[in-house]
């Protein structure tokens, strides 16, 4: 049994919130470079250049990449041999988000659904905890913007819809989203499970580094087929026309009920932010 003080968790979450919002991953920057090589629209190339320059300024000056610094989404992998002391895990994480968004001068974007009154400190964060083997804690902070989240959907296909049904729904979703989710996007797809699980699969798929292969060859093939169809739509960077509507399609899949065929599409803008640490 290893003891970990929750104060350390607060501190790490604080730092991850600030880092995720200012330091865009190298995998995303490389994806911009690849897209620039393939983009046919001159305006599209200009926009991709702007996005690279924006990421450079944000990193150098430690300012947010985007003004929508998002809902704080946390993925926690808690080793079963860890004994947390000094307080409650959930509260320690919420405090870390509170401090990170205040000290990092990040925008507070969380409000009451009816009155729209801002909670003032970007809490509550959404926390997904999984208990795993070992005596470590892995924490990932993935701030998610509202514009792209609004374009995301869950649907219950029927088993007879098959793989073609998946393709049709995902491509249609991207088409209807048009310029709203800040293309070039990353399209997270969850298949299987049930209503809440499929949405989580779609969100988790976004954590995979851009440019990496899906470990399942069948899904890898499906990802590339859907991406090709999406990039034939012509929406392009910022929806102003062009080849690069999405940088990648990521799929996570699990078994589902014999009566069901759940599908989720979680659209992620080009500011694909996430940072992780292991204690």
């Amino acid at each position, binding site marked *: 049994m290893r003891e970990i003080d929750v104060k350390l968790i607060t501190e790490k979450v604080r730092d991850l919130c600030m880092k995720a919002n200012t330091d865009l991953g190298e995998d995303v920057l490389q994806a911009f470079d690849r897209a620039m090589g393939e983009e*046919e*629209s*001159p*305006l599209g190339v*200009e*926009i991709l250049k*702007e*996005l690279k*320059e*924006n*990421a450079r*300024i*944000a990193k150098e*000056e*430690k*300012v*947010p*990449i*985007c*003004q*929508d*610094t998002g809902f704080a989404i946390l993925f926690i992998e808690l080793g079963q041999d860890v004994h947390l002391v000094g307080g409650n895990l959930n509260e320690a994480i919420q405090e870390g988000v509170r401090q990170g968004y205040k000290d990092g*001068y*990040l*925008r*507070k*974007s969380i409000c009451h659904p009816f009155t*729209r009154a*801002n909670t003032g400190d970007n809490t509550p964060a959404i926390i997904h905890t999984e208990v795993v083997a070992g005596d470590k804690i892995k924490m990932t902070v993935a701030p998610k913007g509202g*514009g792209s989240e*609004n374009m995301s959907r869950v649907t219950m296909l029927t088993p007879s819809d098959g793989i073609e049904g998946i393709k049709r729904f995902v491509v249609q979703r991207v088409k209807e989203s*048009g*310029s*709203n989710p*800040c293309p070039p996007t990353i399209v997270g797809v969850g298949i299987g499970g049930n209503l809440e699980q499929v949405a989580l699969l779609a969100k988790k798929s976004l954590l995979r580094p851009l440019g990496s292969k899906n470990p399942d060859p069948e899904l890898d093939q499906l990802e590339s087929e859907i991406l090709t169809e999406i990039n*034939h*739509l*012509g*929406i*392009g960077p*910022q*929806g*102003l*026309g*062009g*080849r690069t509507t999405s940088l990648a399609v990521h799929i996570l899949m699990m078994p589902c009920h014999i009566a069901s065929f759940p599908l989720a599409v979680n659209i992620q*803008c*080009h*500011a694909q932010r996430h940072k992780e640490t292991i204690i």
Partner: protein
Amino acid sequence: MNEPIRLRPPLTDKDVEKLKIGDRVLISGVIYTGRDAAHKRLIDLLKGKKDLPFDIKGQIIYFVGPTPAKPGQIFGSAGPTTSYRMDAYSPSLIERGLKGMIGKGMRSEAVKEAMKKYKAVYFAATGGAGALLAKRVKKAEIVAYEDLGPEAIRRLEVEDLPVIVVNDIFGNDLYIEGEKRYRKE
């Protein structure tokens, strides 16, 4: 690609008549910020036949809710927010003399009709380029609704704010035309 066109508000009919979809524009001078909650309040004022907190004639509204400025910084990160949520409000403001809007994403038919009728344009700024756009803001002050935090109405002085014309006064839409041009069947 053509050189960008330079604009300085307040804009006249003549200024917007020469703009066409796809034109790159650099805006310098004064613009105003406003998004969901601020728009709702402006429309409530109009309904109550009250004055707006600033003279809207010839002005440009930027749909943005910035991050708080860091110490020593003039303005926080400030990319555009998605514009369709302002569609219910924009036609009344255009009728009152608003000449330009900056945001991202497609507008409704009602907004496009108002832009044609009263001669106003819609610009896109690069969504997500918040750090880059913030550097073009030289001065910022709150003019109304401080209680709304990031949604307060601010008067900005900008220099070379880069935008692209998406809807012109002739009824053209770059989102539709651009997609058509690059679509592969």
